[in-house]
């Protein structure tokens, strides 16, 4: 059995979960720092702050999703046993994982910064929470597109 093919797919899965997760972690971290600052003044805003802090968390979930898809694709999950995967197919799965890995990492960070700024905004204007939720979601759009591309690419690879 050609192990290199499977291992390339595993590398793709690892990058998708790892990079997108890191992006989310950094983003949530940045937003959390800002939230802690706001809550020193007004602990009652915990609910709103938590909501905004959670927004950059989706990239990590998308990354995890693609990672699962990738290893499902090569049969490492689900009990059927690993499939026969050629190097080219493995490389294909690896490439298919890249959109969410890259966009997940960077958009997670960018969304975290936006969330942090929006947390500052609701500190002064709690009535504008709706708008504060939309701004970070604008950043997330591109993670959603990357997720879509990764899904479509994975779907297109025949194994």
């Amino acid at each position, binding site marked *: 059995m050609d192990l290199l093919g499977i291992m390339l797919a595993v590398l793709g899965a690892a990058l998708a979960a790892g990079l997108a997760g890191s992006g989310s972690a950094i983003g949530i971290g940045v937003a959390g720092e800002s939230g802690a600052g706001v809550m020193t003044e007004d602990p009652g805003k915990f609910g709103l702050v938590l909501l905004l802090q*959670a927004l950059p968390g989706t990239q990590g979930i998308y990354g995890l999703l693609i990672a699962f898809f990738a290893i499902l694709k090569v049969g490492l999950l*689900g009990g059927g046993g690993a499939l026969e995967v050629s190097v080219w197919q493995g490389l294909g799965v690896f490439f298919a994982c890249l959109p969410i890995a890259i966009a997940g990492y960077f958009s997670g960070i960018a969304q975290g910064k936006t969330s942090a700024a929006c947390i500052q905004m609701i500190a002064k204007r709690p009535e504008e929470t*709706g708008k504060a939720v939309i701004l970070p*979601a604008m950043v997330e759009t591109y993670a*959603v597109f990357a997720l879509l591309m990764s899904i*479509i690419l994975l779907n297109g690879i025949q194994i």
Partner: protein
Amino acid sequence: MGVAKINKLELYVHNSVVDSVVASLQETGGCEIISREEDNGSEDYSSGRLQELDSFLSEARFILRFLEPYYQDPISPVSRAFGEKPSMSIKDLSSLSKTTDAISVSEDMRKLERRLVEIRSELSQISGFQEMLSKLQTLEYPLEFLSHGTEKTKGIFGTIPVNQLDNWQNEVQDTLGADAESFIVPVGEKDKEAWAGLFYFVGTEARALEICSRNGMSRIDIPAELTGKVPDEVARLKKKTVSLHKEEKRININASKAAADWVPVFRALSDYWSLLRSREEVFESGEFTDQVVVLRAWVPDDYLDTVYNNLSEYDSLTEVIKSQPMPDEEPPTLMQNSNWVFPFESLTKLYGPPKYGDIDPTPLLAPFFFIFFGMCLGDGGYGILTLGFFLYFVRKYKKMPSGMKQFFLLFVFSGFASIIVGALTGSWFGNMIDAFPFLHYLQPLKNMPIVLDPMNDPMTFLGISLAFGVVQIVFGLCVALYGSLRDGDYIAAFGDHGGWLVFLVGLMLLGGSVSGKLSPSFLTVGKVLGITGALILIFTQGREKESLVQKALSGVLSLYNVTAYLGDVLSYSRLLALGLATSAIAMIINMLSGLATGIPYIGWVIAIVLCFGGHLFSVAVNVLGAFVHSLRLQYVEFFSKFYSGGGKHFEPLAYNTRFIDVSENVKNV
């Protein structure tokens, strides 16, 4: 439907009844009083009542702040948050206000609070003393020597670095001899500093102090209050602590009793006083003359009858003139929609209400939001959870504030949409029915309504998503066209919106027939429409430029905007992505739970925990995502075509209360 029609009322009220008139207007809850314009020559209305109410309100706030921690509210905080409040009538409130002496209650409470603060500070002081005394247990002399000193003898007490101790003792011995006596608290092994004291005759003070400071002693002052021997002092402090604790307990009991008596009263009164205060603010907006007051108010059509009714009582003393808002005035916006569209108003409010006279986008976005949310969440099981959760609260708390009710109903609707989409795509908690053998009997039921499985055929689903995008964007352009026609701006109507409509439809027909999706007969139609649209745009888009060349150039360049429309349509691909993500996350949770059952003995426990916890997490994350992204499609892709918001909410003079409901409407307070 849409934005309610608003009238401007001018009320001329005789001074003698103005109080009652304003009270009845407040009761209708349908008048927004227009603030007086600055510097129009009328005299300032200032009565002492506003200050009086403010001082009452601040007393009430103090009493509530102090007593609320002691108060056992019969209504749970959750119920309160959902709008459960006791009801009272204005008459009850008014008599309550007359019989309650807020000032004396608040004075009593202030006394209690002050005494509590004193007790707490004394207690903390005593615990400091006790800690110090515990170090000095081996001291035989009265503390008086250290705190005051006597005629002949004095003492100093403090900490000395452990490695200096011997040196210090030797020096004391050598220099002062029998004139001084040193005292060292036993030193622990790890201590770096030792507690030590020195007693000396007053005559040798200078030398004694010099030795101490040379050896690095840092002085600790013994409080003047401590004079006796250590064990006596310890006993005295203990007794004092006990009595202070007793007193604190007594005060707390008193405060709890007071809380049970006064918190409901002052909650009601603080509401009553604030609604009186809002009446006083009305007077500040009125124009006063010797005989009459002039008030101006915005009143929506629906409230006119009630307002006239309530005023009929003062018929002979009031005069009402109704007029339509002038073009240069900016009346507030009140959205009125049918029950089906009502929950979606909260989305329009989030963006900003429409200007008076503009189109209310709520009924226009409602069906799109409904479908989009359904597609983004796209799972029947999660839809049931969402619907059930929010429906439970809506049914349980009938008195929920209107804004909150709108929001909750919105999620009830959205959950329903998700159930429909879930049924059509065969997604119930992902692939749960297929994944667990004990649910297999449901398979025929699940498979029956399936139209399309996005997992197997994502491209078709993508096509559907983009098609919805095209529909919504074209619809948005049509609304914009209608809006411009209504305003009589024909160039904008046919040039901007119409031009784009024709151009885009032409391009789509062209693309469709070239790629073979549509019959070739559309080819010519598409070409004609595309070219016509492009020509309209080229001729109209540069109309604000001066020279002919500039006009032509900006006309041609405007065609590049077609990329923006392309981007808008592609943005709708998120409907597929989020829908797939929901199903896939659910599928993975099911798979992990299935794998966990393989673990011996405790496998099924882990599986159940994974399954429940995982799906709960997933539904929370995905509902948030579905909401935010469906909303974004409305705000960014749809609203940008025709809607700009910019209105202000209708904020009538009404019973805006925090703690109570004003129920029976009793006039003439």
